[in-house]
């Protein structure tokens, strides 16, 4: 990903298969706008999100990573998102501790019916990342050559 004058953020959105991915679908079919630089990766459940995935997304040029899953209590597998909640809390805390900008990572609960929330969340997240600027602290220079 070459660096050029008009930098636009790369966003990776990990979406749980059962709620948020359907939510994204709904946003799409409802013609709700959200920026094209959000790349959605579907995962079976929010708790499938291995912290390595988040780091590798940053390595490969992501400027922000967001996890979307079912609302707590609504997990297709009953409790997956409760675990994901604790895990992401710890991961975000660690990133924060290492001095990575807060706001580059986020978790939002988006149900299948919340297309509008999905679009709004993405718009807001893209804005946050645009304000934060390019990810410099967690980049792998080899991927930018």
């Amino acid at each position: 990903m070459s660096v050029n004058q008009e930098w636009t953020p790369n966003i990776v959105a990990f979406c749980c298969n059962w709620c948020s991915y359907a939510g994204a679908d709904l946003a799409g079919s409802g013609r709700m706008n959200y920026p094209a630089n959000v790349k959605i990766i579907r995962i079976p459940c929010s708790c499938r999100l291995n912290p390595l995935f988040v780091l590798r997304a940053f390595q490969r040029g992501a400027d922000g990573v967001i996890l979307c899953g079912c609302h707590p209590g609504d997990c297709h597998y009953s409790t997956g998102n409760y675990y994901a909640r604790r895990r992401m809390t710890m991961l975000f805390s660690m990133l924060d501790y290492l001095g990575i900008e807060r706001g580059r990572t986020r978790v939002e609960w988006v149900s299948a019916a919340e297309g509008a929330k999905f679009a709004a969340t993405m718009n807001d997240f893209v804005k946050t990342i645009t304000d934060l600027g390019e990810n410099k602290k967690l980049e792998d220079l080899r991927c930018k050559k």
Partner: protein
Amino acid sequence: MKKLSLNALNRFFGEIAEKQTLIAPIERAGQVDFGVWSESETVRLDVLKTVKSAKGAFFPQVEDMVRFHMQGKNIEINPSEVMNEDFVIFGVRACDARSFDLLDRVFLSDPVDPFYAARRAHGTVVTLACNEPEETCFCSNFGIDAAEPAGDVSAWIVGEELYLRANTEKGETLIKDLEDAAEDAAEETKKAIRAVTEQLPFASLNLEGFDGEHLMEKFNDPAWAELSRACLGCGTCTFVCPTCQCYDVRDFDSGNGIQRYRCWDSCMFSDFTLMAHGTNRPTQVERFRQRFMHKLVYFPSNNDGLYSCVGCGRCLSKCPQGLNIVKVIKALGGDK
């Protein structure tokens, strides 16, 4: 012989750094290691042993070799450039200086390693005598004189003065503008250093039997199993060692081209010899044995009896569990 006041050292460094990269033992985050000098860095010539050895100047931990671009069924090959700028490495100790000779025997033997050769050709080595050897030092066993280090320039700290002697043309060029000094200015210091090295706890290890002729005998010694029992299988000894030179060749897919690079590897790691059908060194006993057999038997057998150890003592102070080459020499050598 030339001389320079230690107070003027930074100015001298500045002059070198104007023309070429200067590598010196500098303190960063509480550790002293060889690193690129700039005015804001703290040089620590009082610290005898950098954590890592000086080998990184010629054989860096990671070195790009080639970058590939794949397009459909086609591949484009772009070899990395070899080092093409001069640099100076300052403050190398006698042991590390010897390690360069040993590395030369590996990398400059046929076929010559282009990356290493280029670094070697562009580097000027300034060595420094060891005023206060440590209890872990045992270089004298390998015929190294801590008071008379090799290199393009040898240097001695005497009081507040640094005395430098050029040994090669490269060295001559580097210090030609310094003030002249008496040839014997460092003699007292050398004597003092030798007096200490003679008294060191490992001043005379018995290396008898470590040669190609006793290869199988040493290899089959039952002592290896017990010696290696506590080994964690980490790479600390290997990575701090000035003579360990095994490397791995790896590919990194960057998303826009594949970077092939080499990096230090350790025979202590379980995947070092791993093949599709398994490994020929399945347990830590064999891996541990390989490292020390290579240093004390295999290498000398191929290199006129030169041991692949320079007695720097880094493994003695850095092994998390107190294993080291001296222990091996004592357990398997002539004093067995």
